């Protein structure tokens, strides 16, 4: 199996569509989940932005420096798409959408609804930092590169956002332990 760097070189040098298809297949899930989590309101808009992210990536792939992770680079493009979208739709409200049934278990759907409700309490930047840290599993320095903020600011934002959410859960006496202790069973897997 070829690495991201090898696939990206094939696309940039010989414009190989099969190599780009492979890159999209490998990274689409992370980008779509990230944008769905940020947007929360509209899954089809999130998917449209994810498509746009890959179209931009295809055009600019030659500018990607192979020393960083392609995943981080794609997330930074997706984040720009998200910012452009909320700039255009400044009155957009983040409201939890009921996830589509049929693909995920009941627990997963409940957890997703609760997360979207929680993230709705945060601003776009805090939502992004928290999602990248806890859902995308990125390091603080990677997040700092994506959101273009100093490392210290990223750390303090994540810390403050987490405290805010914990406080909200305590105030509303939410049975979070029941949700989080049950392992999330996904009935549908990509690929």
């Amino acid at each position: 199996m070829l690495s991201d760097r090898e696939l990206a070189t094939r696309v940039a040098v010989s414009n190989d569509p099969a190599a780009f298809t492979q890159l999209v297949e490998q990274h689409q899930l992370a980008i779509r989940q990230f944008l769905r989590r940020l947007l929360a309101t509209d899954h089809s808009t999130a998917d449209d932005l994810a498509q746009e992210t890959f179209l931009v990536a295809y055009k600019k792939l030659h500018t990607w420096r192979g020393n960083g992770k392609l995943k981080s680079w794609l997330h930074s493009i997706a984040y720009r798409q998200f910012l452009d979208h909320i700039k255009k739709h400044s009155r957009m409200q983040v409201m939890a959408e009921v996830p589509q049934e049929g693909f995920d278990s009941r627990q997963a759907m409940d957890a997703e609804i609760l997360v979207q409700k929680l993230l709705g309490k945060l601003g776009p930047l805090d939502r992004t930092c928290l999602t990248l840290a806890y859902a995308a599993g990125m390091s603080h320095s990677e997040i700092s590169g994506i959101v273009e903020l100093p490392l210290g600011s990223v750390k303090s934002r994540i810390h403050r956002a987490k405290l805010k959410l914990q406080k909200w859960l305590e105030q509303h006496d939410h049975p979070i332990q029941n949700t989080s202790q049950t392992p999330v069973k996904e009935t549908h897997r990509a690929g």
Partner: protein
Amino acid sequence: MLDKLLEYHQTPATDRFVSKVMEGIKRQQRMRQIILTAASVIGGSFGVAGAMLLSDPVGQLITQFSAGESPMSVGLALMSAVAFLGWLLHDETRMSV
């Protein structure tokens, strides 16, 4: 506990997404091809029109030059032109390899 909750819980279906992205890329390339072709046609037509307008004065200039100058000067001018073109084409060849 919150850490666990913040993880992704949903797995979107992949079936149509990848093909939609690749269709979008094809559409972009087709659009780029159309724009390039249109620009080439417009540029070419202006070039032909300009060449037609200049053909008489340029022809006269060459005739006068070759009649008035010695064969050595004409040869030198031709060699310079060939050398310039050689340099230009050699550079192009290297870039396309």
